[in-house]
């Protein structure tokens, strides 16, 4: 079915989509969710419905889109930019007029499972594409928890979409074409831990929504699960077993990263920062282990050691000068980082990434001050768009990549300029 979907990338228009959809509508098979992998971890199994719901709401990271930075809990308003226009997280408090107060548990499940609410079809900015695999029991627990929240009288913001995406009825055909009962796996495994990790990653945590590339109509590309995608300014990196191993991640590193937002490979930034904040830091150890097992597979690839410098140091002198001038004060002369100030550059995931995109974006835009679990903090990093020119940043990026990333020194000034322009610097 997804092969057929990919062939439709030929912009052949709505008609073909409708015909294709009609032909394919009968192809849906039964839910593939493994019931043993659903629900809350062992310690919460006998907890009441609302307590279970609280854990699951965090595992599903509902707040990421439904709680605005300065707004009331679950009252909506978070903006989601996309190539099709802007979406806004909706009010899911139990307010009867503005929230979901009139919905039954059945209707709530339909929203998660089918993307259909009592009054309309949801756009797939709501990740029912992932939540579809959620068990009814888990949906009911989440519903129970949300119904305990304070009702907030706050109207939803209308989506602002371009034609033809603003025609909501099109979602029906989109669903026929692209809605799958389960998402493809990037790793191999069978263990109970792997199964639990699959449920937590593919269904609850909806990792694929950012980390899997999307096709022309915004559908997840089922041939490239978790291979990394550029949904926003900071790209979601590849998190397949091979991708993680190539950046030196171990299962232990991943678990620490999810629990604290920091690992030897760097700190969570961009859209992963709120994910850690709102979701993964609350998951119990056994669930974090399950997620790392699912991402890496039952037989993880050995993490690749950081290769020696790829380029003769003489070629990197100019970039090193830039580094010593404006980076070394916080990131350390030898890229070792400073605790509670700035992460290490040596072996940093964004430096080791073959794609320099995130390294360049961080250099140009900076990263705001970050707060992590407990009292851990990382200082704000200034953007260097106004103090370094394209040549400086190119040389700096190449120095970092070749010295501490095992990557070639192949960043060009054009790449820097393009990213500078796209941010309006």
């Amino acid at each position, binding site marked *: 079915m997804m092969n057929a979907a990919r062939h439709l990338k030929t912009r052949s228009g709505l008609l073909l989509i409708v015909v294709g959809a009609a032909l394919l509508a009968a192809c849906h098979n039964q839910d593939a969710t493994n019931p043993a992998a659903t629900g809350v971890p062992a310690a919460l199994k006998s907890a009441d419905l609302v307590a279970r719901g609280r854990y699951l709401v965090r595992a599903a990271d509902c707040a990421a889109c439904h709680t605005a930075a300065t707004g009331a809990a679950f009252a909506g308003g978070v903006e989601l930019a996309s190539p099709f226009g802007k979406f806004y997280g909706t009010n899911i408090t139990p307010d009867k007029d503005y929230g979901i107060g009139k919905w039954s548990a059945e209707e709530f499940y339909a929203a998660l499972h089918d993307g259909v609410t009592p009054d309309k079809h949801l756009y797939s900015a709501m990740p029912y594409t992932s939540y579809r695999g959620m068990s009814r029991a888990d949906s009911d627990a989440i519903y129970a928890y949300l119904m305990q929240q304070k009702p907030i009288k706050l109207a939803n913001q209308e989506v602002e979409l371009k034609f033809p995406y603003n025609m909501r009825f099109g979602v029906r055909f989109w669903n026929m074409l692209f809605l799958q009962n389960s998402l493809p796996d990037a790793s191999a495994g069978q263990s109970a831990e792997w199964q639990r990790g699959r449920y937590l990653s593919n269904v609850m945590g909806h990792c694929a929504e950012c980390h899997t590339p999307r096709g022309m109509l915004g559908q997840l590309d089922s041939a490239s699960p978790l291979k990394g995608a550029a949904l926003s300014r900071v790209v979601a990196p590849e998190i397949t077993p091979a991708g993680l191993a190539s950046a030196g991640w171990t299962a232990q590193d991943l678990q620490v990263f999810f629990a604290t937002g920091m690992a030897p490979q760097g700190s969570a930034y961009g859209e992963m920062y709120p994910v850690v904040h709102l979701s993964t830091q609350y998951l119990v150890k056994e669930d974090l282990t399950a997620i790392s097992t699912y991402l890496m597979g039952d037989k993880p690839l050995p993490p690749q050691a950081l290769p020696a410098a790829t380029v003769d*140091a*003489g070629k990197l*002198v100019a970039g*090193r*000068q830039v580094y*010593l*001038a*404006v980076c*070394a*004060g*916080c990131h350390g*002369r*030898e890229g070792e980082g*400073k605790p509670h*100030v700035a992460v290490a550059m040596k072996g940093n995931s964004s430096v080791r990434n073959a794609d320099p995109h995130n390294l360049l974006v961080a250099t140009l835009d900076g990263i705001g001050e970050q707060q992590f679990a407990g009292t851990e903090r990382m*200082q704000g990093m200034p953007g260097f768009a106004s103090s370094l020119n394209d040549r400086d940043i190119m040389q700096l990026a190449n120095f970092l990549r070749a010295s501490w990333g095992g990557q070639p020194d192949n960043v060009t000034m054009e790449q820097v300029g393009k990213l500078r322009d796209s941010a309006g610097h």
Partner: protein
Amino acid sequence: MSASQSASQISTQDLSLTINGKQVGPMPVPEGLMMIDFLHEYLALTGSRLGCGQGVCHACVVILDKPDGSSEEVRSCITGAHFFKGKKVRTIEGIAQRDDKGEVTALSPIQQKFLEHFSFQCGYCTPGFVNAATVLLEKLKRAPVARDKLEDTITEALNDHICRCTGYVRYFEAVKDVALNTPGLVKDAK
């Protein structure tokens, strides 16, 4: 390029720049040396304060004069001396007027107002506040703000500077005093 940190093998580079209107260098300077250490140890300009040493407190800021006539603060504790190669820098020592012998003959308006408003107590953060306020006043001279935006503008300009004696209000009032009583910095000032 040696990465060795042993004293006998520190690699240096020639550095020349303009500080407080005077040409400095060319002179050999270790390649990873931070600007504040260069000012303190090589030039005996000890007025810039090392506070946190990691770019947070802003006690160490110097003023970078850009070719387009604008000026900005740079944190000297986390910025390498060689960043300033060929550039024009002002430090706290260059803010007041001096005679030929180097004796201070007149404080700058903001220095004077900080005194009048008793803005500081221990004075450790004061060089940073003087430089921040100086940069702000120069910015206002180039682009005056409306009267109702002045408070926000001052807050924004001074906000990153930390004062442990809690002189914030008096620093703020002193800057506002200068801004309102210097012609041309504020639009519609009454």
